[in-house]
């Protein structure tokens, strides 16, 4: 229910901001330069540039929705989705013995934030008749069974049953709406008070942004599961880098050999073509059987994840060499070794960089998955253990950090590519 509402709000913000920024303010934000003079832009992909205002609104919207539906203190409270009911409330029940005798009594409920200690509410007003008033405490988003007849003079044993709540009739299995919540009745006739939940998410499902950030500071300073945050992330990164380096160290020369020698290609083609479509995750069980859950197993797994990608990238790099370049180099008197060094290797660098970016992405995904399965330390292990204790804030923090690191790796490669292979795509 809340989920549907969030989607609706999201779509509404998308449409409204598109109308405001895209149409009304569009003239100021429209593309400048050559593209502004193009009359055909629909269908011309080159004329489509990302609208940075949309990117900003998009990110802000995500955090806004997150904050609004978790009651975050970062955004003003009038923008919050309705929260759960907190405070004192009451309802009356009617008990009757089926022979015409009935009596009313009031249940005083105090709804409090889970984890806080509060006093019992105080019963008020007259309390005559056989049914007696009750007081209960309920945590927000929780519910509470109330044996109201336990303190009554006539109870279930005397065939007295509850027939109405606030004057509305109730029967086993039914629910009645009261102020600030609902009262249900179990099949055995026990009342169950469910305070209004509102539309906000409970922190155990989705903590607020500031709670996640606070947990981040906490884990960053205190650590979690016998390792600091930096150890968790550092171990994951270390495994990725070492696995990737081994994969590149073997894979790139292997790819070159496959691109340059028929024997190598014939020998390794079946292996590479078979291993390429095997997801690295499928190798986790075998690697655990062979090498255990320690560092060796992880690095072997990541080595295998990177190996085939780098092999294929290097092979593609060799076969992508324009034959006229090779002919030209031979005509200029270059030897085979010189052609490898000065023509084939530099010409394949763009392909190798693309492969390295893909391989790093796959490795990063694989290491987290491998740590989810079994590890003593690592980003994946951190969020897996946290999820078992329903520490959703650590899980979300971990996911965000994993995403940030993965994204940073990709950016790093893109920057390196720009500096090291400036001729990419320009021959």
């Amino acid at each position: 229910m809340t989920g549907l509402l969030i989607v609706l709000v999201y779509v509404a913000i998308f449409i409204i901001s598109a109308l405001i920024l895209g149409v009304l303010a569009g003239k100021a934000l429209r593309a400048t330069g050559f593209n502004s003079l193009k009359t055909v832009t629909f269908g011309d992909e080159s004329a489509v540039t990302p609208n940075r205002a949309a990117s900003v609104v998009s990110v802000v919207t995500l955090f806004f929705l997150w904050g609004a539906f978790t009651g975050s203190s970062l955004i003003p409270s009038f923008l919050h989705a309705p929260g759960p009911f907190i405070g004192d409330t009451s309802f009356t029940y009617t008990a009757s013995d089926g022979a015409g005798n009935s009596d009313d009594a009031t249940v005083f409920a105090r709804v409090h934030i889970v984890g806080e200690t509060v006093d019992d509410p105080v019963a008020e007003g007259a309390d005559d008749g056989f049914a007696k008033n009750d007081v209960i405490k309920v945590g927000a988003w929780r519910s509470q069974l109330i044996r109201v007849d336990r303190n009554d003079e006539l109870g279930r044993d005397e065939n007295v049953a509850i027939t109405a709540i606030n004057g509305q009739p109730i029967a086993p299995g039914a629910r009645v709406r009261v102020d600030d919540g609902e009262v249900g009745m179990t099949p055995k006739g026990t009342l169950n008070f469910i305070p209004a939940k509102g539309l906000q998410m409970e922190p155990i499902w989705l903590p607020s942004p500031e709670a996640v950030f606070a947990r981040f500071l906490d884990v960053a300073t205190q650590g979690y599961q016998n390792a600091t945050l930096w150890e968790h992330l550092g171990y994951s990164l270390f495994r990725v880098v070492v696995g990737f380096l081994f994969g590149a160290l073997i894979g790139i020369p292997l790819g070159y050999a496959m691109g340059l020698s028929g024997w190598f290609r014939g020998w390794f083609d079946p292996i590479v073509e078979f291993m390429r479509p095997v997801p690295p995750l499928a190798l986790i069980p075998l690697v655990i059987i062979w090498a255990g859950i320690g560092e060796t197993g992880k690095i072997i797994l990541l080595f295998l994840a990177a190996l085939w990608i780098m092999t294929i990238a290097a092979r593609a790099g060799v076969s992508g060499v324009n034959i006229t370049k090779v002919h030209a180099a031979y005509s200029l008197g270059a030897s085979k070794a010189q052609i490898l060094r000065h023509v084939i290797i530099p010409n394949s660098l763009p392909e190798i960089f693309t492969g390295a970016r893909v391989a790093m992405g796959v490795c990063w995904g694989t290491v987290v998955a491998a740590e989810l399965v079994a590890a003593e330390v690592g980003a994946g292990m951190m969020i897996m253990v946290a999820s078992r204790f329903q520490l959703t804030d650590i899980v979300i923090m971990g996911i965000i950090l994993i995403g940030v690191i993965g994204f940073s790796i990709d950016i790093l490669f893109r920057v390196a590519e720009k500096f090291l292979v400036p001729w990419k795509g320009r021959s």
Partner: protein
Amino acid sequence: MSGLHIKDISMRFDLPNGGSVQALQNVTLDLKEGDLMSVLGPSGCGKTTLLNIVAGFLAPTEGEIELGGKTVKGPGAERGMVFQQGALFEWMSVRENVAFGPKMKGEKEFDYAENVDHLLDVVGLQDFKEKAIYELSGGMQQRVALARCLANDPDVILMDEPLGALDALTREKMQGLVLKLWKETGKTIILITHSVEEALLLGERLLVMAPRPGRIHKEYRLPFAELGVGADLREVKKHPDYNSTREEILSMIWNMEEEIMGRTEASV
């Protein structure tokens, strides 16, 4: 060197369907040092195959190539090649491209740097020495390719439609440059082209080849290249023999093309 001898070259390609194509049949040619020969012919006449055989990229099924008394076995630095495009190394600057040959031979930079600079001046790229290849226009790239070939000081320069990808104006300028370099360096040059005008202007000797099988059809000896050195090529075209020769060669090639078409239609 004592000239380039193309001795009775035949080339047959086997096709996957079991048949074969006679790309060249009994081609014999002798070039002496300093010859400038343009090669013309309809597509499929084996011009490029012939050039690739001379360059050493292909081994002929029969016959042999001899350069300076030695039989050609494979590609070598004494036979420089200028391609239509795509043969420059994008990962090197203009200067590094031109210096590639001497560097591969193991010469010291101190020894070849001056010559490289000089060649870049000759081809008019003095202001682009440190540029990247992809920053240059097509015409400039071909100037680099020429300079790179010359820097290696080959005995023979083989050009495979070197100006084919250029626009008409740039092409005309480059034709002048090729003539100038030919005269200044005295290199033996074989130039393949699709353009009859270019063949006339850049061929002291002009070879017309015929297709199926690829063979030498006729050879001309022309005065235009010599006249064109350092002169306005448009003036050369006003020479009384220019137009008549052009028409003669054009109709010759037209006839070959029509013959092919007719044969193809008959076989269909």
